């Protein structure tokens, strides 16, 4: 099928502001939008810049805005994306634009590091691993699925308004450890999330939940962290 691709282009060395690059390509309806981007880069305009690594929805590097909504380009089929023969592709919002579809992810990863996304437990586990029951493991299973693609954080109006807000992805990562029975750093993380730029900037808009390519119940996880802060209990 013929597809008309509109891609937001920007070269900081030449352009004063972003503009639409328009390309007509031939694509199979079962192809992914990432395939279409690669077709443009490999056969029409080699200067097109975008990130991609695994190309199978695991690495999370090709988050872009397709037809106005955040998605991984490698997970969306052409037939589901095309509208009136056209697909628009733009960079994700809220992070500094570097070139074409590439944004500076450093502010996003700084928020990720701020919530201490690693196991905190100074006790000696002895000669065995730290055991936990299947129920204890299931408690935080959903938030282990995050691939740090930034689809959620950059779809959040609170994050657009204030880049200092830790954002949904960092809260999801915090949730993964706060509710882990083996971890002892919940108080430290909750302290970070109780700050003005922590969970209370979430306005329960649900944009994050709707775009998560891993189907993580992001707003629910944020709600559980809010409740833990209110009640002081990890239930």
């Amino acid at each position: 099928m013929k597809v008309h691709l509109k891609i937001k282009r920007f070269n900081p060395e030449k352009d004063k502001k972003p503009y639409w690059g328009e390309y007509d390509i031939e694509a199979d309806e079962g192809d992914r939008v990432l395939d279409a981007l690669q077709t443009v880069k490999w056969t029409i305009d080699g200067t097109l810049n975008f990130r991609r690594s695994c190309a199978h929805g695991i690495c999370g590097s090709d988050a872009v805005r397709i037809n106005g909504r955040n998605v991984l380009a490698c997970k969306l089929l052409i037939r589901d994306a095309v509208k009136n023969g056209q697909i628009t592709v733009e960079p994700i919002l809220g992070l500094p634009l570097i070139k074409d579809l590439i944004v500076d992810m450093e502010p996003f990863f700084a928020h990720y590091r701020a919530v201490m996304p690693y196991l905190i437990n100074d006790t000696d586990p002895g000669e065995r691993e730290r055991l936990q029951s299947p129920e204890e493991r299931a408690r935080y299973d959903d938030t282990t699925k995050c691939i740090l693609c930034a689809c959620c954080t950059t779809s959040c109006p609170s994050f657009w308004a204030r880049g200092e807000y830790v954002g949904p992805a960092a809260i999801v990562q915090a949730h993964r450890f706060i509710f882990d029975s083996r971890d002892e750093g919940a108080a430290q993380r909750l302290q970070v999330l109780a700050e003005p730029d922590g969970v209370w900037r979430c306005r329960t808009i649900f944009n994050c939940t709707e775009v998560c390519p891993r189907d993580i119940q992001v707003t629910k996880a944020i709600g559980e962290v809010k409740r833990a802060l209110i009640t002081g209990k990890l239930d």
Partner: protein
Amino acid sequence: MSTLFTTVRDTLRYKGREGQWLWVLHRISGLGILFYLILHIYDMSLAYFNVPVHEQLMALFKTPVFSALEMVLAALLVFHAVNGVRVALLDLRPALWARQQLATRLALIITVVIAAPTIIIMLIYTINAHLSAAATTAIR
């Protein structure tokens, strides 16, 4: 100001679903209510400090344009309250997240159910008030 500009620009650029637009409406209704409260407090303070200006303002508030704005304010007030309850419930009971689209629709339906009769009553009262004022003027 740049934060406000960025937020408005990105909200228009991003194709969010019901939640995003309810958030936008919640903000607009909140600002509308705040504007009304400031105007109301200012006007009421004039009743003590400057009676002639207060009476001029009261006459202005009785014009059809302000009567219509009062009805819009009533609808915004109802929406703001109902949507606030929706957001608070979803925050306090995260397990309800799966029903958020139902909650969105319910918030809009409850708003209409409460606001529609309120506006009709206000409309009848306003029309009667304008008709009786016109009749009084005609008799004179």
